[in-house]
């Protein structure tokens, strides 16, 4: 009987070798899963109800009673040992399979997430919306009007008489029917005052046109924002304060402004307004080099402004002895170019997506 058990164990060990001598380094997941299936079959074969050891157990009746206890122990011992070997092999394989699966299903968490490509608003739109928000919060109404105007609104009402250099310049576009593409958004001042009367506070963003040869700083169509405030007792101090306030809201609290005397037919006194350079904070030096946006001056020229000319007020039926007002205007392309260090404003109208996608 002992020999029989010995024989069973030897058979087991011979067959079990395939599970004991696994080269895990070269084992593929599918081979491991195959081995696992084999191991289950093997387990059933050697420890199941129809296994040799089970058969051997049945022989206990043929054993003399005094030897039965010992026989029983040795069978159980053999069975236990086989089972434990199988379980160990099972665990090794199971761990290997689990580990391999995790390794195989490990993600590269750094690749981009799944989302549709989003688009971008034009930098001019982004800036225009910001400026509109600021002015609306300061009590201004956003206005707009015709882009094709007649000479009255484009020139005469703005105190630019025939023969005036600003009018003589060859840069106004005319239609074959004698109308002008507005050369400044100041036209909206007139139309808005006619429509709303005074007191009035408006800004008018919009397209304007000048027959200029395109170059890095000129384009034949661009955007302007015009501001107008007319009321009793409005002074140049209000102009300066208002310009300073909205520039601080746009560029930051530290922004300083300055005004320099200038000339525009529709304002008197007139001024240019500059703001302290947002890149170098007005020092003229950025990272030990001459600052580019302000050309090292610390100031950036933004636009023109002044007190509304009494003739302009009169043209709109407003009595300049009772009312006074200020107006200002500036170009969005120029401001955009400054803000984003764009050195060629023609890019704004090429609609190259590599350009457009840089703005949010």
């Amino acid at each position, binding site marked *: 009987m002992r020999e029989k058990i010995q024989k069973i164990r030897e058979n087991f060990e011979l067959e079990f070798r395939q599970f004991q001598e696994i080269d895990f380094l070269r084992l593929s997941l599918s081979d491991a899963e195959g081995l696992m299936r084999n191991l289950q079959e093997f387990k059933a074969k050697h420890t199941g109800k129809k296994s040799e050891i089970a058969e051997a157990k049945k022989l206990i009746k043929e054993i003399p009673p005094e030897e039965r206890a010992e026989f029983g122990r040795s069978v159980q011992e053999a069975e236990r040992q086989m089972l434990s070997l199988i379980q160990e092999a099972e665990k090794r394989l199971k761990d290997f399979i689990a580990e391999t699966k995790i390794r195989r299903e490990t993600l590269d968490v750094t690749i981009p997430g799944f989302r549709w490509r989003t688009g971008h608003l*034009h930098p001019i739109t982004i800036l225009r919306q910001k400026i509109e928000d600021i002015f609306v919060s300061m009590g201004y109404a956003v206005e707009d009007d015709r882009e094709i105007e007649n000479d009255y609104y484009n020139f005469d009402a703005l105190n630019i008489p025939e023969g005036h250099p600003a009018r003589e310049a060859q840069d106004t576009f005319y239609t074959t029917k004698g109308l002008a593409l507005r050369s400044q958004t100041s036209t909206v001042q007139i139309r808005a005052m006619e429509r709303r009367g005074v007191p009035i506070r408006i800004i008018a963003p919009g397209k304007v046109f000048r027959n200029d040869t395109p170059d890095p700083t000129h384009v034949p169509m661009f955007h302007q924002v015009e501001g107008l*405030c007319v009321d009793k007792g409005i002074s140049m101090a209000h102009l300066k304060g208002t310009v300073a306030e909205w520039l601080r809201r746009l560029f930051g609290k530290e922004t300083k402004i300055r005004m320099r*005397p200038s000339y525009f037919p529709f304002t008197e*006194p007139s001024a240019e307004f500059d703001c302290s350079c947002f890149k170098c904070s007005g020092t003229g030096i950025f990272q030990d080099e001459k600052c580019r946006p302000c050309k090292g001056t610390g100031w950036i020229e933004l636009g023109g402004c002044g007190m509304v000319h009494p003739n302009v007020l009169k043209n709109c039926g407003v009595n300049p002895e009772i009312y006074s007002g200020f107006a200002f205007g500036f170009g969005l392309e120029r401001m955009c170019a400054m803000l984003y260090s764009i050195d060629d404003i023609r890019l704004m109208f090429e609609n190259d997506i590599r350009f457009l996608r840089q703005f949010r």
Partner: protein
Amino acid sequence: MNISYNWLKDLIEIELSPYELAEKLTNAGLAVDSVERFGDDYVLVFDLTSNRSDCLSHLGIAREVKALTGKELKLSYNDPEVASARTETADNLETKLNASPCGLVTIEAPDLCYRFTARIIKNVKVEKSPEWLIRRLEAVGERAINNIADITNYVMHELGQPMHAFDLDKLTENRIVVRRARKGEKIKTLDEVERNLDETMLAICDAEKPVAVAGIMGGFHSGISENTKNVLLEVAYFDRNSIRQTSRKLKLSTEASYRFERGVDIENLIRASDRATELICEIAGGEADAFVDVYPTKRSELAVSLRPQKIKTLLGYDVEVEEIKRILSLLGFKLKDEFSNGLSFVVPSWRHDVSIEEDLVEEIARILGYDRIQEEIPPSFGAGEYQPSEERKRNLRKTLANMGFDEAISYSFIDASHDARFEIVPNLVNENLQEKFITLMDSIIEGAVRMRPTLLSGLLDAVRTNFNRGERNLKLFEIGRVFAAFDDKEGAFPIERELFAMVITGGLMLEGRALPTREVDFYDLKGALEASFEALQLPFCEFVEKDIKHLRKGQSALVKVGGKEVGYIGRLSDGISEIYKFRQPVFVAEVDLQTLLEFEPVKPIYQPLPIYPSIIRDTAFLVKGNVNFAQIKESLEKEAFQNLSKIEFVELYQGKELAGDERSLTIRFEFRSNEKTLTEEEAEESHNRIVEFLEEKFGIRKRF
């Protein structure tokens, strides 16, 4: 305009460095662009505003320096008033006379030539100018010619008065007649160009013919040459408009015409003439001879009053009366009168830009410096307002950006040949007009003379640009105005209407990933348009199959919103694709945004949530090409089948095993009752009735 620092110092004492001076002048409204070294001198490069013609000379700038620093001018030559007094007694002229008694000068057009002085200088030697003179001219950017021409140039830059020297012996009868040119008269000017004059132009003539175009350029034959012995020096004042118009007509602008058309100082003529005479005698060795001054059109003196209260109103701060007087007198304004509430000042003859009270306020403000102005916020007034449609437009833009569309802005003028390619959005063009579109007289961009009636031309150009730069997956939109004629009448304002257009082409892209998920198609663009309408809170929209000029047959539709025709959508036709050399399908849509915004925003209305569950049936039908989903859906909704709560599109299949124009259209029907839970049998019964109805109405069969 260039100003030499050293030259300026000849005219006024300056304690400031050139850089300090430049800053001071800039802050007073005379913008100095740059200061450049020029040997032992500095050159201040000015960018003057067009109103300050009085500053187009060293004298002009010196006057400003005087106002800013209080130093006196040190002119070594005659004060204009002394000079004019001298000549009037010397020649004993009657001011009304249009001609000098000796007959040297006759003004036949006193409306165009207000004043004319002539000086005869005899026995000059024309040669190269001395070195100092050449250097000074070079400093201000002038090229030396000969001593006589150089001196006239020099005095113009010094005193601001253009002048012209004639060879006296070349003038027929040695005399000058100032008159309008006669029809057909010609003159070869100093630049050796033959120019045709007309009756509107003022000419300086001798007894026979024009010898100079007044105020613009002298004649070639009467000019100074090596052999010139005797000179007639013209120093005059011409009507500004006349000079300007002639200069435009002849397309000839000179340093002289530039100054005359902006306005020179009519009271400065004799001083300028004397200065040039002095220099010619000194340098060219001539002898001063006869001088005449014919001044038929006297300048009227202009007085402007100023109330200190106006200063306070406009500038926000008070200026003492004594301070007002001090500043304005430094600038050459003479106090004329003092009232209880103000003062009146005589405007100096060189200031053509001052005529009203506000101008005087600006003079005071700029001399005191704009830094003096405080920062104040006006008292509050009322709530701000956006444009009424701004919120909806911002929603639209945001929605489009979220769907991957980049925003384009294109020029409003396009090539006139382009508008014939496109079907213009409905109700924009007045077909009864001869000229339906708006055209520009000329454009700086070759050929771009049409004010665009469509945004598509610009968007397709953008597609081309991006293709050229290697970007083939594009989604672009533009919101902007288009233009069309409203009326045939001269001066009638055209229609300006805001449109919205989109273009897509290439693949559907994911952020940060290189390959498209698939190529775009008609439905991608349609989806984007539908989402746009939703963002605009519009009433129901319809897409009606229609042939459109610029779109491919079978892939184009008319877009209707709330029953109104608003635009078109579809795949760009092969013909247009060929013009733009597109080698991949391009889809475009254009709609009339302005009309869309006239619809009141549709507000959502709450629908009670269903209580009972629904039963769903997906059914595939075999449909003929002329039957579409919208027709089926509409007819079922009209029939109001019992318990049919929803009709949804599932799939459209055009397999090869299907005959001809047949397609397999799968539709999902949802059945639900508001009273009870439906049984399968009840749903089945409704469904069967629908299938029967559709077969009867459209002749379409259920496949499965």
